[in-house]
Structure formats: structure tokens, C-alpha cells
């Protein structure tokens, strides 16, 4: 009598496997819960929006043809990031994305105002330095921290967005840095670039980064004194 | 001494100076090697912004030119000496070629097709470049390709036309018809 005859027909048994393959070392916990993730994403969206607006606005103000075209292309990159973050927010229980699309503090608003202040056609160096030597490095830092720290199991959608954004940020950073290097031809221009960078860097420091204090975590150790 | 007459001698619709046009014409004529006792008439249609130009008579020598052909395309209604020299030089080579004995079998200008015009122009303008004029080589390549095809064969024919110094009408005809798409 076969299993079929006995009415105990089953699919042929296979050897069981672990749900995580041996090379899949992802762990469950991450640094950020849903609410904290949404808060940061809202700040990222605000920052990317301000950045793409500025790049778009500057196109008409720069006489250098190669810079003009690059700004147009980069404008879209950051708008694309803003859109990805915008779509992520409702998935993090924020049904009104505009509620979280805010700066972390007034200090970051001051930074953005200072970054977008140069307008004259002779200030291409300042415009580029603000973005490519101050803002983009800070953005890369914040996104890298977030990507590395969030849960690779529960928050994979955010990681995917951050990785796409980071690819653009690195390439645009390189593009922008090369444009700056090609535009700086005199010691005076070196000074101009450095002065503007220092001014903006201090404002960004006061803001604590693009997501406010804790944008890239805190590496310092509290030592208990005897 | 070259006798160059520009009509009109006063321009009212564009900011051309007949004396400057005559001066450019004289300079080009000397460089391309027109006889010094030549009389040349230039009829400029100042009301036309187009770029047409032709030898309207070989004897006496008369060129008819749309004002746009001499115009500075960056500053409309103003004269461009470079463009003026380019146009006049090209037309002057027509005169030189037809009187060389090597173009006796060439049809009248009105009976030559556009491809042959482009080929003859390539030969003329190449010679102008070697005299120090700036005749926009790539523009001539594009015109030639439009008439003969966007092919390597056409490009090779252009190089030969451009780089040669004294081609006959038969040579020009051979190179043009031999590379048409």
C-alpha cells in the first residue's frame, strides 16, 4: 500500500534551509526607529529641495557654459532625491509629507540663505564652493551615517534610496570639485574660495549638519572620572 | 589700379560703407591675383538679409550680392569684413578659373547643379584659406556633404578639392560626380 492509498500523500520532503543564507549577515536592530527615520528623511527632503532650487536659480547667473550645463543636470539629480524622500515619508506613517519637510533648526536656514546669497556673474567660484565643498560633503556624511546605521532588514527601502542618492552625490561632488579647481587660477581666487568655505562651514557647524545635531552620530566617548 | 564700383554708394537700410567694401574687394583682388587693370562692379541688394551671391556677368565683371552675405551675423545690419572677403574671394576665383583656359568646357553658372557649385566653392575657398583668409572650413564640409552625401568617399573628394591649387573643370566634375551618394 502506498502513501497515496493510505491517504497521507505529501509533497516530497526537501532538506530545510535557514531563511538567511550563510553569507547574509544582516542583523535586525538599527539605530533609528520609524519616527526618527521619518524626521531625518524630512530634513533630507528639505535640504535636497533647497539645493535643487538654488542650482536651478543659478543657471541664469553663471556665464561659464560648462558650469551652466552641469548645474542644470545636477539640479535634476537633487530634485530626484527630494522626490524619493517625498515618496518615502508616507511609508513611514507621515501622510502629510510637508509636515516633516522642514529644516532641523533656524541655523540651517541661515546656512542655506548664506549659501544662496551669491548672485553676480563674477561669483561662480562662491556658488560652486558653497555646494561642492561644504554642502555635498555634509550630505554625503549624513547619508552614509544613516545608511550604515539603519536596520538592513526593516529599513531596506531607506537604504536603497540613500544608496541611489549617494551615487549621485559622489559623482556630482567630483564634477563640482573639478569645476572649482579649473576655475581657480590665482592666489586671490584661492583666498576667495577658502573664505567663503570657512564662512559657510561655520554656519553649518552651528546647525549641527543637514539633519541637525546628530546628523553623523557622536564618535566621542564619555569617560567616567575616578 | 583696380577700378571697383559699389552700388549703392550710400546705404540707407544697413550700416555698410561702400568705401570699406571697395577696400576689402581691392585687398582680396590683389591677393587672389586678379589683373590690376580690372574693372569690377559690385551690386549689393541692401534690402535682402539673405546670403545669396553670384557672378552676374563675366564681361564686364559684375557681382550681385544680397546684403545678408556681407552682414555681421552677430551684429545685424553691420558689415563683416571677413564675410565680405570670403564671398568676394570665392566669386573672384570663378572669374580667374573661367579665364584660365581650364574651364572652357564648364557650363554657364546658371546651368551648373548645386553639387557642382559646392565642389567648385570648396576648391575656391580652400585656395582662399591658403592666402590667409578664414573661410570656415567645417561649414564648407557640411555644405559639400549635403550635396554629395555624408560618406567617407565624399569627405575624401572634399579634401582633394580643398587642398588642390589648380584644378580644371573636368577635375572638379570628376571629383563631384564620383562621390555622390
Amino acid at each position: 500500500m502506498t502513501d497515496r492509498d493510505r491517504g497521507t500523500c505529501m509533497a516530497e520532503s526537501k532538506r530545510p534551509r535557514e531563511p538567511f543564507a550563510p553569507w547574509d549577515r544582516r542583523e535586525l536592530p538599527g539605530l533609528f526607529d520609524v519616527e526618527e527615520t521619518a524626521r531625518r528623511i524630512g530634513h533630507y527632503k528639505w535640504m535636497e529641495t533647497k539645493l535643487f532650487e538654488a542650482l536651478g536659480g543659478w543657471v541664469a547667473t553663471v556665464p561659464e557654459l560648462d558650469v551652466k550645463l552641469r548645474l542644470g543636470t545636477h539640479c535634476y539629480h537633487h530634485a530626484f532625491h527630494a522626490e524619493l524622500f517625498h515618496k518615502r515619508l508616507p511609508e513611514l506613517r507621515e501622510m502629510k509629507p510637508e509636515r516633516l519637510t522642514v529644516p532641523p533648526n533656524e541655523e540651517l536656514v541661515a546656512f542655506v540663505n548664506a549659501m544662496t546669497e551669491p548672485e553676480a556673474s563674477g561669483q561662480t567660484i562662491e556658488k560652486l564652493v558653497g555646494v561642492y565643498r561644504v554642502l555635498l560633503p555634509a550630505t554625503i556624511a549624513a547619508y552614509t551615517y544613516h545608511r550604515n546605521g539603519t536596520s538592513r532588514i526593516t529599513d531596506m527601502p531607506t537604504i536603497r534610496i540613500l544608496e541611489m542618492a549617494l551615487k549621485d552625490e559622489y559623482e556630482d561632488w567630483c564634477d563640482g570639485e573639478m569645476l572649482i579647481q579649473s576655475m581657480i587660477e590665482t592666489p586671490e581666487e584661492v583666498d576667495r574660495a577658502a573664505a567663503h568655505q570657512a564662512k559657510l562651514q561655520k554656519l553649518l557647524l552651528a546647525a549641527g549638519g543637514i539633519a541637525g545635531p546628530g546628523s553623523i552620530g557622536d564618535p566621542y566617548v564619555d569617560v567616567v572620572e575616578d | 589700379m583696380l577700378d571697383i564700383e559699389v552700388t549703392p554708394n550710400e546705404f540707407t537700410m544697413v550700416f555698410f560703407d561702400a568705401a570699406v567694401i571697395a577696400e576689402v574687394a581691392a585687398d582680396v583682388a590683389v591677393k587672389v591675383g586678379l589683373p590690376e587693370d580690372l574693372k569690377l562692379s559690385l551690386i549689393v541688394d541692401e534690402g535682402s538679409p539673405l546670403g545669396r551671391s553670384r557672378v552676374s556677368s563675366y564681361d564686364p565683371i559684375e557681382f550681385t550680392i544680397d546684403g545678408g552675405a556681407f552682414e555681421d551675423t552677430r551684429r545685424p545690419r553691420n558689415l563683416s569684413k571677413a564675410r565680405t572677403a570670403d564671398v568676394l574671394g570665392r566669386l573672384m576665383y570663378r572669374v580667374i578659373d573661367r579665364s584660365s583656359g581650364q574651364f572652357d568646357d564648364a557650363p554657364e553658372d546658371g546651368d551648373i547643379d548645386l553639387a557642382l557649385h559646392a565642389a567648385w566653392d570648396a576648391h575656391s575657398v580652400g585656395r582662399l584659406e591658403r592666402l590667409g583668409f578664414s573661410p570656415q572650413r567645417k561649414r564648407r564640409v557640411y555644405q559639400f556633404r549635403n550635396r554629395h552625401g555624408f560618406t567617407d568617399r565624399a569627405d575624401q573628394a572634399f579634401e582633394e578639392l580643398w587642398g588642390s591649387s589648380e584644378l580644371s573643370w573636368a577635375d572638379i566634375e570628376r571629383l563631384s560626380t564620383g562621390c555622390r551618394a
Partner: protein
Amino acid sequence: MRKIFPAEELARDSRFIRQSNEARFSDPRGARVGGGSAASTKLTPEQANGPDRARALMHGIFVGEIQALEGAGRTCFDFEVGEDVPFELKLDMARQCWDEARHCEISVALADHMGTELGEYAENTTLYEAACNPDPVLRLTGVNRALEGLAIDVFSTMKEFGNLAGDPVLEFCEDWMLADEVTHVKMGSDWLRSLTAKDPERRSKALEFQRVVDKLFSFSGFRGDDEDSPIKLTRQFRSLAGFTDDEVDDIADLAREAKAEAATA
């Protein structure tokens, strides 16, 4: 940086020379300059000056693309999300920035292919001026529907020119740019409808602004719907981009009107 950046201050390098509207419209050669009777023959390679006309038109396209890029960029910056425009409208404008930057790159490559130098022809900033309108709806209608609509017509003509001339580069490039322009016009059509769905007066004003721009950029009938129009209205692609037959008929009538006015001027 200011909101609304004036056309007089558009930044250019030394190769580019600007021609004012005043200078352009006061040219006593009149209709023959704008594309009237003498220049109104269809743009084909068979014409004696066909290649040179195509070169000049291509340069006009190039500077137009720069201004379209600048206009789209300004629209990203000049308006506040929520108060003035939806977030999605700005995303569309940023996308247009990218597209127009690519068109500039394509135009530069085509200029080299055709033997044209950058800045060889004077630049007129009328396109960017249409992009300076303080009402974003009028801006999109004037630029995206009227001017990008013209771009559809021009690129179709250039594509056909490339096809007739056997120029694979020109035909290829124009076709790619044409695809993008249909997207841009559609953006204009879609935003006009959605932003004025409950505001018929604003919509009417926007369409009137579009008519003004359409008529101005018919260049005295140079762009029209007649068989001998040098630049032909491209009904098929305009339909894809959200134009109704009536709207295209209206543009054709405006062109005939402009042509008639130029003939009697």
C-alpha cells in the same frame, strides 16, 4: 539671490552678442528679415542656401535651449512650494532643466557637425523674457505650451531636413530632442489644466498670454500650417502633448494673421 532674474542680466561669456527686440523689430528690411515673402520658402536641402539656413536655425535652437534651461531653472527657484506652486511642478521643472542641458550639449555637438561657431549669430532673449512672468501658470503656458510647442515644429522640420539631406547625425539628434519637447509641452498642458481647474479667469489670461507668444514666435508666418510654411505646425506631436485640434487651428490662424500683417507693413 533674487526671485525673478531679469533678462538683461542673463550671464554669458564673450562669444555671445545680444540683439535687443528694439533692434530686431526696427530692422527696415522688415518682413524679409522675420521670414516673410523672400525667405518664406520651405527649408529643404534642395535650396541653394538650404545648408546655411539650417545652420542659422540650429544656432537659434542652441541659444533657445540655453534660455529654456535658464527659464526652467528660475521656475525652480522663484516660487515657494505650497504657497505658489505644488512640489510636483518644481520636480517637473528640475527634470526640464536636465533635458534642456542635454539639448544644449546636443546643439553644441550639432554646431560642430554643421560648421557653426558658438555665438556666430546674435542672440535674442525673447524666450527667456516669456519665462520671467511672475505668474507661474502664465510662465508655463508661455514657455512650455507656446515656445516648446514651437520647438516641436522646428525640430520636426530639422529632422525632415536631415532625412532629405541624408544626414544621419542631424536626423538622430533632432528626433531625440523632439521626444523630450513633447514631454515638456505636455507638462505645460497638464499644469495649465490642473492649476486653473477652479479659476477660469486665470486660465483665460494664461491662454491669452500663450496666444501672444505664439503669434510673436510665428515670425510673421514663418511658422505656419500652410504647405509652403518654412516651419510647419506639427499636429501629430502637438496632439500627443495635449493640444486639441481647435487649439492647433487657432495657432495656424494666428500665423496667417501675422503673415498678412507683415505683408502689408
